C-alpha cells in the first residue's frame, strides 16, 4: 500500500514492484496478434488466469483487446489494487530491549492471531490473551502500534482491516509500561 512507501522514505516500492505477469492491458502493440476471423481473436493473457488460453470461448472473449469496453484508466486503477496486494506491506517491529528491529509483512497475516503468532516466533516470547477489558493478560509484553495520527495504540481493539490501513509500525512494550496498558484500561 502507498502508506509504506511514504513512511519508509527511500524504499520506493513502486520502482521495485513485482508483477506476476504482463503489465496489464497497456500495450496493445505487443499483445494484439494477427486477427483470426469469426470472433476468435487471440487474446492478451494476463497472469491472473494462469494460462487459460485453452479455456472456454467465454473466458477468451472476455480478454480480447478492446473487450470488455472499459477505459484503460479504470482497468489500471483496479489492477493496481491487485498488485498492491502482491507487493506486501512491511512494517517495522521493535521490541523493548532488543538490539535491532525486525520487519513483518502485514499482508501475509490473515488477522490478529496470525500477527501475534508471527511476533511471538520472531522474538521468542509469549504475548498473552487479548481481552477488550484488560488488554493482554498472562505475560509481561503488550503489542502496540503507531497509527496514522501518531498515537500509540494497543493492538487488537479495532477491526483488522482498519488496523492494517492505519498501522505505521509496531512496538512490543515490556515490563511496567506494558503492565500499565494491560490492567484496568
Amino acid at each position: 500500500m502507498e502508506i509504506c512507501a511514504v513512511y519508509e522514505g527511500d524504499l520506493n516500492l513502486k520502482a521495485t514492484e513485482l508483477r506476476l505477469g504482463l503489465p496489464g492491458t497497456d500495450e496493445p502493440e505487443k499483445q494484439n496478434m494477427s486477427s483470426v476471423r469469426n470472433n476468435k481473436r487471440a487474446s492478451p493473457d494476463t497472469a491472473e488466469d494462469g494460462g487459460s488460453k485453452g479455456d472456454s470461448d467465454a473466458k477468451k472473449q472476455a480478454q480480447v483487446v478492446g473487450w470488455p469496453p472499459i477505459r484503460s484508466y479504470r482497468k489500471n486503477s483496479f489492477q493496481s489494487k491487485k498488485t498492491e496486494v502482491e507487493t506486501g506491506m512491511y512494517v517495522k517491529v521493535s521490541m523493548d530491549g532488543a538490539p535491532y528491529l525486525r520487519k513483518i509483512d502485514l499482508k501475509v497475516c490473515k488477522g490478529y492471531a496470525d500477527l501475534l503468532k508471527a511476533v511471538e516466533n520472531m522474538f521468542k516470547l509469549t504475548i498473552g490473551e487479548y481481552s477488550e477489558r484488560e488488554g493482554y493478560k498472562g505475560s509481561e509484553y503488550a503489542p502496540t502500534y503507531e497509527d496514522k495520527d501518531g498515537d500509540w495504540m494497543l493492538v487488537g481493539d479495532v477491526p483488522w482491516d482498519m488496523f492494517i490501513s492505519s498501522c505505521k509500525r509496531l512496538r512490543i512494550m515490556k515490563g511496567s509500561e506494558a503492565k500499565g496498558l494491560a490492567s484496568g484500561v
Partner: protein
Amino acid sequence: MNYFPEEVLEHVFDFLKSHRDRNAVSLVCKSWYRVERFSRERVFIGNCYAINPDRLIERFPRLRSLTLKGKPHFADFNLVPHDWGGFVYPWIDAMAKRGVNLEELRLKRMVVSDEGLELLSRSFVNFKSLILVSCEGFTTDGLAAIASNCRFLRELDLQENEVEDHRGQWLSCFPDSCTSLVSLNFACLKGEVNLAALERLMARSCNLRSLKLNHAVPLDTLQKILAQAPQLVDLGTGSFVSDPDSETFRRLRTAIQKCASIKSLSGFLEVAPCCLPAIYPICLNLTTLNLSYAQGIHGSELIKLIRHCGKLQRLWILDCIGDKGLGVVASTCKELQELRVFPSDLHGDGHAAVTEEGLVAISAGCPKLHSLLYFCQQMTNAALITVAKNCPNFTRFRLCIINPTIPDPVTMQPLDEGFGAIVQSCKGLRRLSLSGLLTDQVFLYIGMYAEQLEMLSVAFAGDSDKGMLCVLNGCKKLKKLEIMDSPFGNLALLTDVGKYETMRSLWMSSCEVTLGGCKTLAKKMPRLNVEIINEGDQMEATPDDDRQKVEKMYLYRSLVGARRDAPDFVWTL
C-alpha cells in the same frame, strides 16, 4: 438580405448558446455568417483533424473557449496505439502566435505534453479553465507550470488521465496570491501531494465550489479542508479511512454537517466502511453520487448508503451492488435520470455482477431514467422489452454483456427483439451500444426506427453486409459509427460513400474490409481521410495485395486533407 444592423444581429446571436444553433445561423447567408463568426467565442471541434488551427483562428478571431477531441472512442479500450496522434501542441502554439485571448481549453483523448502546458500557461494572460479528460503524455511538471503561471486560474479539472507523477511539488506552485480557484480535481493523480500546501491553498480559495482529491489525501486533511470550505457543492474524497472513535473522525463529522451545499459526491478511493455514517447527513441532498472507484464499499454498506439518497439524479456504481441493491435504488431514487453500473471484477471470474433483473427493477422504479451504461452478466429479450416499455425516454442506452456473443439464456435466441424494442420505443435515442448475440435483424430495426441516432457502437454482431447497410441507409442523423469484430466488408463500406461526408467518423476493426476496398473509397472521396492502422507490419511486405483484410480502419471527413503528423504505422490512403 437582412434589415437589421449588424449590432442587432450580434446581440441576438449572443442568446444562442448551443453550437448547433450557431452553426445553423452561420449558414443562412453571407452577412449572417460574417456576424456570427466575429461574435463566436466558444468553439467545439469533435475531431481535431477535421480542421487545422490556422483556419480555426482565421474564422473565429474572438475565440476564447476551445473544446477539442482527438483519438477515436475505441482508443479508450486500447484499440489505438499510443502514438497514433491527437497532439494538442500545434493548437496551443498557433493560438499563442496569433494572439488569441484563450480563457478555456477542454480536451478529450488528446496527447498533451509538459511543453504544451508550459506554453499554455505563459501565453494566455486571462486563462481560466483547463479540463483534461482521458488525456495522456504529461507529468506533474506540466501541472506545476499551470499552477505557477496562470494568475487567474479558476478551474483545473483532471478526469481519468494518465499522468506521470514526478513527486514534485506542483500544488505548492500555486502562489499565495492565487485565490481564484473555483474547481480543483486531481483525483486521477497517483502520487503524494504536499498536504500542508493543499490546506493553505484551500484556505485561501474562498470561491471553491468543487474539489476532488486523490487517494493520497488522508481523512485528517479532508476534515481540515471541509472545516474551512462549508460552501462546497461538489466533493470527491481521497482516502476515507479512520478510527471512528478518534478525535479526527469526530471533527470530520462536525465539518460535514456544516456542508449544507454538497450536491455531488465521489471518490472513496480507499475507504473503511465503518466511516461511512459520517456522510449520511449530506446524502439527503445529493443529486450526483459516483462510487465507481470505491472498491472498498460492498453490498450491504453500499445499500445502506443509498437508502439515504432519495434525491439522486445521477448514480455511478460498481456491479457489486447486485440485483437486490439495484432494487433498493429503484425504490429509493425516484428522481434518477442517469445510471452507470461498472464491472468490479475485470477478469470474468463470474461472481458479483448484475443481471437483467436489476435493470428491470430500475426501469420500473425510475421513470425519469434517460441515460444508461450497464455492464452485466446476462440479458434477456423479455427484460429489454419490459425496460423499453417502462422507460421510453432513453437518449443514451449502452448495454455491455461481459460475454459479448451469448444469446438470451432463457430462450437461447439472439437479442435482436430486445434491442428492437428499445429503438422502437425510445424515439429520442441518440446513442446506442449493442452486445450479446445479434444478427442482421437488429440492424434492420435500428435502421427502421432509430431516427435520432447519432452514435452507434457495435461489437461481435451481425451476419452480413446487409446489417451495416441498414444502419447507413436508415439512420439519417448518424454521426459516429464504430464497429469491431463483425462480418461487414467492402460491399457495406462502398455502397453509399457519400454518407461518410455527413458523418464525423467511421471506425472498423477486425471486420471483412480489405485494403482494396479502402483504397477505392479513398479514391472516390477525396474529402475523407481514410486511415489504416497497420501494426505488426503485416502489410508492409505486400502493400499492393488489395485482397488482404485491413485490421483497423478509421475514416473521417476533413477540410484540410491528410494529416502530416501520422506515425509510420498509419497509412492515409
